[in-house]
């Protein structure tokens, strides 16, 4: 008795077209939606914050950012500039990879790694300088939530850079798509960070 059932075969093997790039694009879109929703809620809370008189009584202010909290603007502005540098370095990696220049590809990716670490380090420095607790107020709770989520996205970017860099060290410089995808992720992170920087650190 035959016990073998036939089922539809999957078909011939197909050439995969830029899988890493497409996946990174989708993940970047998801990241943008995540941070976009958090920023929208942030703006909603800020807009609905009650009004109070300024300390000199000359104008009315939104009672949103507690008076005792000072955002270290030097560190946050440096972060903004650093992430732009990260993008330039990621683009340098693409440029070198297209020319099969393994040394410069690795060097560029190494700089991306360093700048990414610097960004995360700067964020920790911002937390330490501000010296605020999560429980202190609605603002502090939301501040930690949104900035920590952004940092988590950067840690993912750091991991991505490490992966691409190790492949580059192994002389797999033909991974153009992966290096391109890596750059796309950092571009999207830059746009997302710029939005967060403007809303949370500049407009406060």
């Amino acid at each position: 008795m035959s016990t073998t059932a036939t089922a539809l075969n999957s078909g011939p093997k197909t050439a995969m077209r830029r899988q890493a790039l497409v996946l990174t694009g989708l993940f970047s879109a998801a990241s943008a939606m995540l941070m976009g929703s958090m920023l929208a809620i942030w703006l909603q809370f800020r807009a609905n914050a009650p009004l109070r008189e300024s300390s000199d009584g000359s104008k009315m202010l939104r009672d949103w950012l507690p008076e005792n909290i000072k955002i270290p603007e030097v560190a946050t502005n440096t972060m903004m500039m650093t992430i732009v540098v990260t993008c330039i370095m990621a683009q340098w990696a693409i440029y070198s990879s297209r020319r099969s220049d393994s040394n410069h590809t690795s060097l560029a990716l190494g700089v991306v790694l360093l700048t990414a670490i610097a960004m995360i380090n700067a964020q920790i420095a911002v937390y330490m300088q501000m010296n605020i607790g999560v429980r202190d107020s609605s603002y502090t709770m939301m501040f930690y939530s949104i900035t920590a989520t952004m940092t988590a996205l950067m840690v993912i970017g750091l991991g991505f850079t490490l992966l691409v860099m190790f492949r580059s060290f192994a002389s797999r410089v033909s991974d153009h798509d992966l290096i391109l995808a890596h750059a796309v992720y950092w571009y999207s992170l830059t746009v997302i960070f710029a939005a967060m920087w403007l809303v949370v650190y500049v407009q406060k």
Partner: protein
Amino acid sequence: MTAVETISPTSSGAGILGGVSEWLMTTSHRRIGRLLVALSVFWMLIVVLVGTLLSVERISSTSDLVDPTSTTQLFSFFRVGLIFGVMAPMTLGLALAIVPMQIGSQVLAFARAALFGVYLWIFGMVIVGVAYIGNGGPGGGDPQMVDLFLVGMALVIAGLIVVSASIATTVLTSRRAGMTLIDAPIFVWSSLITSISLILTLPVMAGALIYVAVDHSYTRATFGATDGVNAWIGWALTSPQIFLLAISTLGVLAQIVGTMTRGKQPLRGGLFVGIGLMSVALVGTVTQSFYALQLDGELSDIAKSLVPFLFYNALPILGVLIVLGLCLLAMKNEKAKPSAAFVPAFFGVAMVLTGMLGNALLRINNLKLSNTVFEEAVLVYVGYGVILSSLGAIAYFGPRIWGRKMPTMPVIGLGLLGTLGIVLAALPYYIAGFTDQPASRTTGSLGDNSQIWNSVAALGQAIFLLVIVAFVGLVVKSSRDGEIANDEIFETAQANV
């Protein structure tokens, strides 16, 4: 065609362990998809059972079938379980199993990531289930369990996003040479739209969830403590988010009709447009707005609310009508060959459409249907409609995966019985909604005729539960002992329909 699955009556001892290991570590899209579908069927049974219990409890306000302190949690569980435990994984599971075959790819893009996503979903749903048992759902009494619920939901969302990304990447990158997106089978298109919709909407829910979770863990002041959970993520548990999970029902129906008519689908591009129109719900979802119609006031005020109301509520309905109309047009073909799977697939879409029409009524403020059981009926119509359509999809695609036919008459019978169950389970709540029977409650003012409506609804839930159990039995039986499928079923499986 190749024999790709061997159904062996015996397995060696090492084979069992090896078999389990193979399933747990598999990169086969068929297995990952079937794993997700099987687990969503498990949740389906639990959720429909809970729905039946709640309907029975509603028959009498003095009933003590369910502990009164648990009813709020059970209503919440029904909603969360139906959407994240059944609709989403069932839709994605079918796509995982079928889409690569339809586009002529041997593998799923990032198959290990997809498997990881499935595991995230499994652990997340287990955690969510445990949290509910410990009184920790939205509005729950145990704060630590509510924290656990939020963690579980985060894992569920992450898992579904990863699986969706794998499906979308497969469709976009792994089609056989020469196959453009417009050439791809219609089920592939609907799976792509569903996946991208989930990738864009679930992170929005995740963003709110992060705030709520941090607030709940530390201060419980800003986002309304346990009651705030529903206020901030409730939009993801109702329309229009649930419409996004119903998009693939259109793909299933159009695919079956395409096979029945051997690819002779007039105005095929219209199917793509119809499915795309349904995804307009995406915009309503990410803005977390319902766009209600207000019929009071000046004509300009009415027009002001009418335009967004029509855009967000009527366009998705138009999309469904276009697909239904084109499918019926194709069926006029004299050579159309009947298929048993058409019955559950067609009535599944009809139920979804009924739910969407009900949702449009719900959004007319003057009817005052919000917070009544009418809202629950919309969820039941859409959610159960998706389940019914999925049964049709399993009946249609199943033999192409395991190589054995499913019997025709039982599939048609269960499809019709399932439709009857859904109508009985939901229609009374449409009626009771107009008598102001409150939502998510088993006591209080239930209206004059509520006992009749609630009894009918309970009967409908029980029938639907029975249909699911019977269908599972039918699938198990036919996949083991069913008639071996002949070449005929493969003829149009990869046709451009």
